[in-house]
């Protein structure tokens, strides 16, 4: 059954491998996936450890429901101390790896040390082996995966790999599985590279008994209907995530030219319908694909239609690639986006960070802060498609001054470049912001500023705040599973009630990450999707664990608090521009210059923003400095951390 899946502790320096069961008490405290990873990270690393050193621990996991009869339990979670931020490193991806790992007998891997030579870990039905990867070192993300299959003579092997960017220690290199599934953020692929670890491969045929199979199957049927009946998921299933980009851009919420504008003009060539057209032309009418067990099928397939890479197959481009290689750099051309997307997928590098840093460099180039000397003659003018694609490659292989500097991440690069470059860097805690512009949405700005892994939209974003839902609908959503009788506002430009929404979403997303289910299957973009109540039933039918919605909420709070403890241990300070819960001054000082009437001319009110952070801390049980109060830790059972239960 799901609960007998184990943890494996793998030391790449010594080759020592230990496996342990996960006690039920630990399950009830942290469930699995991201939550248990956070506990393991806090317990298995020491304060101030070098993110690229052998003491950093790399966690790879599935959720407690992975590969059970619950919809879309495809998610693989990766965690370590981040080489990009020096704080929490954490990233999540779809695909088919985590279920295969579960069928191979494991839910969690804790990888420490550094292999002497390039290596990969092969896991097969309870057995773990460290194998030589010298033959595949240097290979692209996909080639490496196909090579392992060929070497082992098994086409069903699923692998998590780092690409050339990870090998070259690009601080925002990602971990990938399949053609395009990426645990994109915080540089987890860089940690793999630093450990000489090219891949972790799994193949399993071990039974996972379902606690109540008949009920689980029937409940899943209804659960899936609830998910696929949401209009937002139906649209995702035809246009993919680009549809969000189209809607956001037409309204005025897409960063353009780094942070100069909030809307990309002349974007016809990268609108969702145009991208869909290219997918259809190159892959036929049925070009949508899905992760394990998912009926939303939000990933498009395409082939690059022309140019030097014409005919290359890839998946996406997602929302983020449209922003990173279309809007931010002001190159709204499909060919640039599709090619840029393919390059980062092959190099194994976070598209978001890559595009964001390139657009930052372009703004510095415009301002004269960097010149042709630093760019080695490359013309980094806005809208230069070739320069954008050239920079992607220079970063992955650390070519030239600028490629090498950007590969170290924004803050270290700003120190190398000097002058006022840091002022233009759109980041929180050392990680670049998504291309979405949050100046007209205080709730989303608060989310970006306080997210545990640095600037991020997938940790606590109340995206439904943009829908102007009636207050009674908001109240119904946000008063479950714990009561909330404070204010709520349907107005997205308001500051009232937003901290509670951010707090609630933070716990919701942690919950879904512990279970191993995709965020599109909960209240992220759709209002009617499953939350704590449904999860309580899914958890019971599949694992037999009886937990109330309130208890799952408590688990989520506990796991979020562990992430907070980790960040505080590694130097988080509330107002620190490099390591704090603070936004770049441009959010406060530069009003939006484009967009709809409710967007144009707007910026974040700093006083009100500070008050929102205060209020969020109160909900979280933190003091004014963002440090947990002793009674909070006690109520969550975290007063003795690290407690080394596993």
């Amino acid at each position, binding site marked *: 059954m799901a609960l007998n899946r184990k943890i494996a502790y793998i030391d790449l320096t010594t080759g020592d491998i230990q496996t342990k069961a996960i006690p039920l008490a630990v399950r009830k405290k942290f469930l699995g996936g991201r939550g248990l990873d956070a506990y393991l990270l806090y317990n298995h690393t020491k304060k101030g450890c070098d993110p690229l050193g052998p003491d950093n621990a790399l966690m790879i996991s599935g959720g407690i429901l992975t590969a059970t009869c619950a919809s879309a339990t495809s998610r693989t979670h990766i965690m370590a101390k981040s080489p990009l931020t020096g704080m929490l490193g954490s990233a999540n991806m779809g695909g088919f790896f985590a279920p295969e790992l579960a069928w191979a007998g494991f839910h969690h891997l804790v990888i420490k040390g550094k292999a002497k030579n390039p290596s990969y870990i092969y896991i097969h039905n309870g057995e773990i082996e460290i194998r030589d990867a010298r033959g595949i070192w240097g290979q692209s993300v996909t080639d490496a995966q196909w090579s392992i299959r060929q070497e082992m003579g098994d086409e069903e092997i699923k692998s998590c790999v780092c690409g050339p960017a990870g090998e070259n220690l690009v601080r925002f290199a990602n971990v990938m599985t399949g*053609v395009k599934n990426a645990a994109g953020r915080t540089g987890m692929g860089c940690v793999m590279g630093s450990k000489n670890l090219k891949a972790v491969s799994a193949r399993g045929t071990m039974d996972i008994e379902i606690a109540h199979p008949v009920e689980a*199957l029937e409940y899943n049927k209804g659960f899936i209907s609830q998910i696929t009946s949401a209009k937002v998921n139906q649209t995702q299933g035809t246009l993919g995530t680009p549809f969000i980009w189209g809607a956001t851009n037409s309204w005025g919420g897409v960063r353009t030219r780094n942070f100069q504008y909030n809307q990309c003009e002349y974007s016809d060539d990268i609108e969702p319908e145009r991208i869909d057209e290219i997918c259809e032309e190159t*892959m036929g009418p049925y070009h949508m694909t899905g992760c394990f067990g*998912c*009926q939303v099928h939000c990933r498009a397939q395409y082939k690059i239609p022309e140019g030097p890479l014409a005919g290359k197959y890839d998946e996406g481009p997602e929302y983020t690639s449209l922003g990173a290689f279309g809007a931010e750099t002001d190159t709204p051309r499909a060919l640039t986006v599709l090619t840029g997307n393919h390059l980062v997928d092959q190099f194994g590098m976070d598209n978001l960070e890559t595009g964001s840093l390139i657009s930052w460099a372009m703004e510095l180039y415009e301002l004269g802060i960097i010149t042709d000397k630093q760019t080695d003659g490359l013309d980094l003018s806005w809208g230069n498609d070739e320069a954008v694609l050239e920079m992607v490659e220079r970063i992955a292989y650390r070519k030239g001054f600028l490629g090498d500097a950007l590969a170290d991440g924004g803050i270290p690069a700003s120190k190398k470049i000097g002058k006022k470059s840091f002022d233009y860097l759109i980041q929180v805690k050392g990680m670049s912001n998504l291309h979405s512009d949050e100046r007209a949405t205080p709730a989303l700005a608060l989310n970006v500023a306080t997210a545990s892994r640095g600037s991020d939209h997938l940790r606590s974003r109340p995206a439904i705040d943009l829908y102007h839902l009636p207050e009674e609908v908001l109240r119904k959503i946000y008063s479950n599973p714990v009561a909330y009788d404070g204010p709520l506002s349907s107005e997205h430009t308001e500051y009232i009630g937003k901290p509670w929404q951010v707090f609630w979403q933070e716990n919701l997303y942690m919950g879904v990450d512990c279970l191993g289910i995709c965020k599109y299957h909960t209240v992220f973009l759709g209002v009617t999707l499953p939350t704590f109540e449904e999860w309580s039933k899914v958890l019971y039918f599949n694992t037999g664990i009886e937990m109330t919605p309130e208890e799952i909420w408590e688990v989520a709070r506990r796991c979020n608090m562990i992430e907070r403890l980790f960040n505080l241990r590694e130097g988080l300070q509330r107002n620190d521009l490099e390591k704090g819960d603070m936004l770049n001054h441009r959010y406060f000082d530069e009003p939006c210059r484009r967009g709809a009437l409710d967007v144009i001319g707007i910026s974040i009110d700093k006083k009100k923003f500070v008050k929102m952070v205060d209020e969020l801390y109160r909900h979280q049980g933190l003091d004014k400095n963002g440090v947990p109060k002793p009674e909070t830790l006690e109520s969550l059972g975290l007063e003795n951390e690290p407690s080394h239960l596993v």
Partner: protein
Amino acid sequence: MAKVLYVDHEKCTGCRLCELVCAVSHDGISNPARSRIRVLKWEAEGIYIPMTCQQCQDAPCLNVCPVKAISRDEELGRVSVDYNTCIGCRSCVSVCPFGAMNFNATDRRVLKCDVCDGDPQCVRFCDVKAVDFIEAGEVAIRKSRKAAKRVSDAGKQAADLQALI
């Protein structure tokens, strides 16, 4: 006339939910190795093809079985294994031209699609209808319509070109 499983591989999104629900509904266990339907993939090209038993009229598995454990069930339109008679020699696995007769190493017995006694769960859960359960005679007409559509599209395209010239 009994219905048959019809796979339209172009529609398959590759999610493998069919494998999951097949194993869970038959054995109460999640494990693709227990599934009677398998999605074969060419991931580098984005091609996914679900494969399952064709319930052949002249079934090699039935013909080869040395103890006559395999028989045709005309009412449900399926070829079924009688586990009381089966000796587990796996001859049927060897001869199946589709690899649809599977062998489960844990239970040490063969397994194949039984169309869930007329309510196939893979079909019930596949929203995109890459697997469907239809009259055998209906399969050809569906395929004909699809092929005719291609001819029709080509015709229209040619007409457009004519207009351009």
